[in-house]
């Protein structure tokens, strides 16, 4: 260990001074926030980090803006030391348009790519899988960046952190899991929340290094972190750091914590690295009192200037509501506004007959060839088998490490995709059956879907998620046969497509992969390996938000998507024998939704039925039927209606399954009823 000869300290005095400068900036920020909240100068919810300043102050001396950081709502100290502009930080916390994220994320959702602060989550532990994705992007591109994900000791209990640690170990990702162990999980202590308090020791269980470092001694912490960061930067895989610290404040609010004893608080304050580092700088003669006071005054002035400017900014106005939900502000559905989107031109080149599964594989291959940022990850997608329905067969053989079979860990998969997408890659993540979406719903709807909005478009997530949907084969049961598109459609920020033909599957999937927003490509289990069709060999795109008339008709419009389109087609043939002419619209894209073509068709037929395999109650059909009724009330011969599955889990019994979901016979019966009315 090198020692500075002047001071006998195991650290360069300049570095220690800079560590204190960051501590002073963090301290000034913390004090100004608490004072401002107490005096009523401004209001936002604050999760104080008083006591934890040394961790980012030290890390800031070992990392740069190129290194990625992910942190949590208790992360203002991390943001300050990372270099987020204080004016933009305060403006964001106050919900102002000039905030670093246009006031749309607020204090707990800072994203500032310029400083490397990539994402801040208010969901405990959820940052870890996303940090893996940022680290994956750096690794895939051969960059020497490290990614540091901060979280508290409370997050060591949650599944996302375990999934992330397992994946990081398996892939040797350049990521540091920084557990800021302030010894209290919100309001709950060890051993009430764990019988395994050796957090650093857990890393060995995942096959990588774990170290326990005392951040209350900034010099020792600096030395320890120097070794950790060097190890990770050199490509030796992840490290878990348990940084021992204290939290002086409450979980949320201001002042001292009332959750710990007065004795414990006194001990925490005695060990507080901010005054201790200050005293050390004085004692060793590295800084004079005048120099330290000047540093603190400068920090306070920087903060006060930031607050004054932030208070002068405009509150983020209502005009921003639909901006940054997607790249394109016409995507969010709005009452009375039905954009006309141009249909695709038909490709004229060579075609091949493909199964839908093969068309999906061909789309992925086309994307992998076109853009080096595209990569695939998911369960069992490697060769063999190339996915449970062989939708990625042969691609690992052809593209090697750009096709990544993953652990069975959906949060890790989606988080990795989200992080890599934020870093500018175009991940295609498969989670097998949509029934598994529940396992990773937080990653999908709280993170991938909202990141563009919460970051005020400072970041976005060009991620594609592939899921097998619906049953129809019989015997796959209640946990592998559901049609859960309504869960996804209820989440602003996601685009959802659902092809019914091999041709559309390829064209829609390519559009998804090269879209700038998170897209879900739903793949009907019933058709993947049973439906063949002509598929162009070339790269072609089906624009999102363009429905297609599959069959022209005059008496009723059947609106459907996915495998139910084919049930409607069979029903229409039956009805034609009875002189009932049904027009069939295949939505193809559910969000953005092509209300324009739907309403145009129903204006003509004056009757409409929406058909889907999903549960009818609270299903997408109710939404579409309601809009048709509102828009065309005086035109309709009968109220627009919807037809979906019975309100029961999908049965294991083939007989029940076939009958609980709309089929050609039951669809035809519903149409007859509607025409007779």
């Amino acid at each position, binding site marked *: 260990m090198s020692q500075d000869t002047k001071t006998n300290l195991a650290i360069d005095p300049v570095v220690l001074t800079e560590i204190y400068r960051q501590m002073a900036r963090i301290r000034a920020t913390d004090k100004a926030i608490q*004072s*401002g*909240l*107490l*005096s*009523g*100068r401004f*209001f936002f*919810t604050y999760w104080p980090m008083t006591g934890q300043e040394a961790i980012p102050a030290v890390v800031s001396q070992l990392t740069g803006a190129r290194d990625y950081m992910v942190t949590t709502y208790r992360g203002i100290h991390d943001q300050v030391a990372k270099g987020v502009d204080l004016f933009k930080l305060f403006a964001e916390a106050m919900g102002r348009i000039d905030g670093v994220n246009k006031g749309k994320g607020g204090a707990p959702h800072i994203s500032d790519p310029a400083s490397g602060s990539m994402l801040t989550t208010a969901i405990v532990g959820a940052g870890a899988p996303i940090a893996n994705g940022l680290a994956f992007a750096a690794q895939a591109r051969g960059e020497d960046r490290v990614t540091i994900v901060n979280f508290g000791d409370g997050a060591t209990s949650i599944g996302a952190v375990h999934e992330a640690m397992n994946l990081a170990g398996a892939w040797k990702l350049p990521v540091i899991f920084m557990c800021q162990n302030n010894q209290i999980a919100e309001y709950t202590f060890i051993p009430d929340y764990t019988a395994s308090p050796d957090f650093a020791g857990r890393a060995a269980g995942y096959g990588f290094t774990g170290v326990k470092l005392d951040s209350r001694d900034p010099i020792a912490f600096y030395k320890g972190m120097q070794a950790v960061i060097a190890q990770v930067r050199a490509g030796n895989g992840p490290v878990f750091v348990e940084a021992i610290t204290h939290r002086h404040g409450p979980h949320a*609010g*201001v*002042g001292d914590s009332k959750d710990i004893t007065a004795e414990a608080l006194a001990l925490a304050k005695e060990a507080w690295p901010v005054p201790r580092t200050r005293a050390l700088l004085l004692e060793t003669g590295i800084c004079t009192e005048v120099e330290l006071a000047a540093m603190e005054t400068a920090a306070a002035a920087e903060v006060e200037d930031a607050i004054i400017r932030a208070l002068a900014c405009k509150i983020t106005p209502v005009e921003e509501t639909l901006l940054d939900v997607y790249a394109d502000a016409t995507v969010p559905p709005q009452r009375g506004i039905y954009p006309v989107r141009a249909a695709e031109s038909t490709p004229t080149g060579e075609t091949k007959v493909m199964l839908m599964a093969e068309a999906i594989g061909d789309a992925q291959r086309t994307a992998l060839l076109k853009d080096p940022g595209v990569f695939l990850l998911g369960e069992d997608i490697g060769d063999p088998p190339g996915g449970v329905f062989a939708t990625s067969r042969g691609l690992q053989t052809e593209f090697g490490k750009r096709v990544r079979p993953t652990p069975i860990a959906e949060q890790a998969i989606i988080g990795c995709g989200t992080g890599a997408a934020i870093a500018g890659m175009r991940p295609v993540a498969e989670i097998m059956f949509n029934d598994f979406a529940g396992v990773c719903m937080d990653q999908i709807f709280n993170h991938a879907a909202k990141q563009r909005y919460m970051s005020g478009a400072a970041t976005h997530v060009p991620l594609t998620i592939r899921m097998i949907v619906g049953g129809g084969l019989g015997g796959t049961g209640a946990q592998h046969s559901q049609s859960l598109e309504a869960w996804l459609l209820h989440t602003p920020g996601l685009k959802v497509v659902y092809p019914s033909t091999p041709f559309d599957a390829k064209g829609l999937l390519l559009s998804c992969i090269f879209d700038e927003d998170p897209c879900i490509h739903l793949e009907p289990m019933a058709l993947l390996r049973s439906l063949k069709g002509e598929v162009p060999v070339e790269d072609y795109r089906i624009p999102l938000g363009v429905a297609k008339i599959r069959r022209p008709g005059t008496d009723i419009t059947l609106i459907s998507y996915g495998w139910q389109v084919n049930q409607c087609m069979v029903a229409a043939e039956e009805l034609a024998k009875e002189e009932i002419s049904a027009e069939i619209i295949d939505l193809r894209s559910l969000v953005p939704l092509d209300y324009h073509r739907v309403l145009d068709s129903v204006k003509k037929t004056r009757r409409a039925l929406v058909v889907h395999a999903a549960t009818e109650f609270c299903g997408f059909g109710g939404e579409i039927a309601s809009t048709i009724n509102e828009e065309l009330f005086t035109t309709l011969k009968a109220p627009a209606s919807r037809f979906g599955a019975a309100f029961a889990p999908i049965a294991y019994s083939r007989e029940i399954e076939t009958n609980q979901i709309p089929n050609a016979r039951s669809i035809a019966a519903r149409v007859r009823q509607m025409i007779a009315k």
Partner: protein
Amino acid sequence: MPDLLIPRLEMSMTEGDLVEWLVADGATVAEGDPIYTLEMAKATQDISAPAAGVLTQIAAKGQTYEVGTLIGKIT
């Protein structure tokens, strides 16, 4: 120099009771000194001075005020 407004210290808070001034009108306070007691729906908290200076009391104790009400100044 700072105005003292009734703060919003709990998410659901719309008003608070100024229970007591802990420092006399016109007295000099140091930053961080407790200056008044605020009662909210869930808790009572002593509010500390955001800055050093002379306290001017504007609002009377023993009454309920809306969040954002000016109750004093430090000059």
